């Protein structure tokens, strides 16, 4: 391991699905001698790219798990996290971004900035990850890097500046002009492994000079030294890189490189750019929360001599047990040491430590500050913080969205039942957006997640990795209930059936509240309900929220205020007041005009313009509200808000409407009331289901 931290880079490769980032990673590993042959994603040779270590990923040609790997380039050590591109796996992307210092944003030179790139870019902004852009697939017909640079500026608001100029485009792509060194670069050899430097071709010279000037202009805004050198016409490579690096680290400039990973062009200069322009661990300010001091932020120092603070960001089930990927922010994680899981308060002895290269590994003795590695045989969940005993800090908890879709599961046989439990246990630890519970009434196992594909992938993994024969029900939307007006209650719970009686009167009102699940306010004065029974009242109301009286969906957005009541010196008890609260809620809820809420998704469809009428029609049929359409020359993006319940099977519909040329992404937007006709249908379905259970 390199002792000099300034030569370490922890980077991610983020992009829209199918932009070729797995191919790009594969080439990076090849040129850095981590692998010795190249495979394609949808491998004709049946081997598949190295980063997609899960069988399923290989088959579908997509990356699900963010496998971490490392490589070395010109004296630098680069840790790479391969991130998933589909929005259904956003938690994975966000978790990866949390541990990265910098990123390569891969864009397709034909497709340009697509909807998922926008989502990924927003996430990068949130975690302030500096990035460089790589315009891939310049060999494809319709490639237009200039358009992509324009889109980076217009759609994503990046101050994008080109560091290169392509030599030829589409089928004629030969190499790139390096605008910093003012050299033409060609990639020779069977796999483009030899970089040949030449003079810039005559035909491109004028354009190269002009672009270089634009590059210097943009960079000199961030360096007085460069500005002076530019005026004196004595700009050196070092000076230009220093200015570019400074601006890149603060996200004020996004340097743009280009090439074609598939055709082995432009990858080595991209690696050079990673070492020149992206931050080392010490360049990035990381913070933890001090748990002893009201979660005040504490700055972490990338110093191996300080106490340990590390984050478990990814779990994987390997043949030797659970493999936990960690990023060490401060201190050193060494073999044989005892560390503390700050989130669970458990002490752990560090056993084997490894450095990963997709599914091969290398044993190491310690993971120093700023590095990424993996631990064996540690029981924890992703997002847990490891520290040295004695300090009590936790790394910022990551935002976890609520699941919007659920599915009932059942095992075909006993053997599968055990395997399903094992699998569910693993998946819920790996992915906080994936949840599971058992329905008390039906005894079915319910899994919940962020979309149809999200759940489908886990079911496939149960079948393949755990050999579990699973039967699934129809996906169900996570509806909710809420109230829309204020209603008052005054309820007395009284029981006198021999033995000690029960008595409690409770009065007040319920009303809608925005942005909160449940608010309880006690305005009792004069002790009409004794203080010791108030928590029982709150609990009584809270219990009612789990299952709304209207349709059994969870109730949200309710504020309960109690302002009067009565008690009896002998017959009042916690139980009596809990029962009174439940009675009060049941009585008053129908008066508060309850409605059913459904998850509304933000859907973006990218389609060739000729199909946009048909696509809009298909969105409109799904109770969707189309917000607008964005014309991008041959392609067009349509944005709409559509109830999740109407989106089942949409991918098939969209494929057949557009000859498979359109794609869509979907993410949760908000909860909105369900129209009356749909509520009636839900009521009907619910009563049918109840009859079946009975």
């Amino acid at each position, binding site marked *: 391991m390199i002792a000099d931290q300034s030569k370490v880079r922890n980077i991610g490769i983020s992009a829209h699905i199918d932009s070729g980032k797995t191919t790009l990673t594969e080439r990076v590993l090849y040129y850095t001698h981590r692998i010795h042959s190249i495979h394609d994603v949808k491998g004709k040779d049946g081997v598949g790219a190295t980063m997609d270590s899960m069988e399923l990923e290989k088959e579908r040609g997509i990356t699900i798990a963010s496998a971490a790997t490392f490589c070395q380039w010109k004296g630098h050590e680069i840790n790479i996290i391969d991130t998933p591109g589909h929005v259904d796996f956003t938690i994975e992307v966000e978790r990866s971004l949390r541990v990265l210092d910098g990123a390569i944003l891969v864009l397709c030179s034909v497709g340009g900035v697509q909807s998922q790139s926008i989502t990924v870019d927003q996430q990068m902004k949130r975690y302030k990850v500096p990035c460089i852009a790589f315009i891939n697939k310049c060999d494809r017909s319709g490639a237009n890097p200039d358009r992509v640079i324009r889109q980076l500026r217009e759609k994503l608001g990046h101050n994008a500046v080109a560091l290169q100029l392509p030599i030829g485009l589409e089928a004629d792509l030969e190499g790139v002009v390096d605008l910093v060194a003012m050299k033409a670069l060609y990639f020779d050899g069977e796999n483009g492994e030899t970089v040949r430097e030449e003079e810039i071709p005559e035909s491109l010279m004028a354009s190269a000079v002009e672009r270089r000037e634009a590059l210097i202009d943009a960079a000199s805004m961030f360096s007085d030294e460069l500005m002076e050198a530019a005026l004196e016409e004595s700009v050196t490579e070092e000076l230009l890189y220093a200015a570019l690096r400074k601006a890149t680290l603060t996200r004020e400039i996004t340097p743009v490189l280009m090439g074609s990973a598939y055709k082995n062009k432009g990858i080595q200069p991209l690696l050079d750019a990673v070492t020149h322009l992206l931050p080392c661990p010490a360049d990035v300010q990381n913070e933890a929360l001090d748990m002893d001091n009201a979660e005040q932020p504490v700055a972490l120092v990338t110093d191996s001599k300080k106490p340990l603070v590390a984050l478990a960001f990814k779990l994987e089930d390997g043949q030797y047990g659970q493999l936990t990927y960690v990023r060490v922010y401060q201190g050193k994680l060494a073999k044989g040491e005892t560390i503390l899981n700050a989130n669970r308060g458990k002490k752990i002895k560090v056993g084997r430590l490894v450095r990963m290269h997709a599914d091969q590994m290398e044993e190491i003795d310690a993971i120093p500050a700023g590095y990424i590695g993996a631990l064996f045989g540690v029981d924890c969940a992703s997002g847990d913080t490891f520290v040295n005993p004695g300090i009590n800090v936790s790394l910022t908890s990551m935002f976890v969205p609520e699941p919007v879709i659920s599915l009932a599961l059942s095992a075909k046989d006993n053997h599968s039942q055990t395997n399903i439990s094992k699998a569910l246990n693993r998946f819920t630890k790996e992915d906080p957006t994936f949840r599971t519970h058992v329905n008390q009434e039906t005894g079915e196992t319910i899994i919940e997640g962020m979309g149809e594909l999200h759940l489908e992938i886990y079911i496939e993994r149960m079948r393949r990795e755990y050999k579990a024969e699973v039967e699934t029900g129809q996906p169900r939307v996570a509806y909710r209930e809420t109230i829309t007006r204020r209603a008052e209650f005054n309820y007395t719970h009284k029981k006198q059936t021999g033995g000690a009686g029960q008595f409690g009167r409770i009065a007040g009102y319920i009303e809608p509240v925005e942005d909160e699940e449940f608010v309880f306010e006690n305005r009792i004065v004069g002790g009409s309900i004794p203080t010791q029974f108030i928590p029982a009242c709150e609990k009584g109301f809270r219990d009612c929220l789990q299952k709304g009286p209207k349709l059994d969906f969870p109730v949200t957005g309710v504020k309960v205020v109690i302002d009067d009541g009565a008690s009896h010196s002998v017959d009042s008890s916690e139980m009596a007041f809990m029962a009174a609260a439940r009675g009060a809620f049941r009585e008053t809820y129908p008066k508060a005009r309850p409605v059913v809420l459904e998850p509304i998704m933000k859907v973006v469809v990218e389609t060739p313009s000729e199909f946009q009428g048909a696509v809009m029609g298909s969105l409109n049929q799904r109770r969707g*509200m189309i917000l607008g359409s*964005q014309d991008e020359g041959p392609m067009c993006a349509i944005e709409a808000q559509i109830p999740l319940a109407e989106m089942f099977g949409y991918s098939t519909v969209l494929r057949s409407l557009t000859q498979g040329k359109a794609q869509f992404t979907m993410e949760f937007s908000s909860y909105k009331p369900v129209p009356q006709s749909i509520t009636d249908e839900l009521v009907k379905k619910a009563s049918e289901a109840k009859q079946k259970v009975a």
Partner: protein
Amino acid sequence: MLINDLILRNPLRLMQADSTKDTLRPGAFGAVLARAGVGKTALLVQLALNSMLEKKNVLHISLQDPVNKVSLWYTEVFHHIAQQYAVSQANELWDTLLPHRFIMTFRVEGFAAAKLEERVNDLSEQGIFTPNMIIIDGYPFEQDMGAALSELKELAGRRGCHVWFTVRTHRHEAPEQFGLPRQMSDIAELFDIILQLQPEGKDIHIKALKVPGTEAGSSKLFLDPATMLITNSH
């Protein structure tokens, strides 16, 4: 009460002698002139919200900003209005307004009357959206667009809607006749109404450069520089 109150704020209504005539006739053009960043889009978004409150459909075409950004303009302006008038159930009102708006963005070079007509037909034939008012933000008036504008005017007439444009003016160019900037002087006859936003001191005046029945250069309305909302006092 609220809706009527909001509708009554329509600057055209206050500017014109006949207070019932608050919208342009089908096929008519209106323009809002100002330098960059003074509030052209904010003003037009208020006109659009006004139409949406009257349950009229607005097609907002932007030739420079993406759908999200245009959408953000509406949310911001609406929230300012909701705050100013202390609207109690703003979210519900917003939900009822949204179906009356459709945003389209085009690249400047790809925008033409024929393409717009194709898109609008697509929407109205499927019963998705039929505009009553069109806003075109970012139209390239610097170039000689006389013929293209005439085609748009014909299209608007056929579809029975009126069109509002934003026109960006430049500080260094001296105005020509009636205070119109150079790029508007040749095509002024295509427009029924031309308003100009003129910052004077702390205020932004909404000046009538060409409004039937109103003296050119008169100004009764202002934009509040803090909220960009139309006011009649300062």
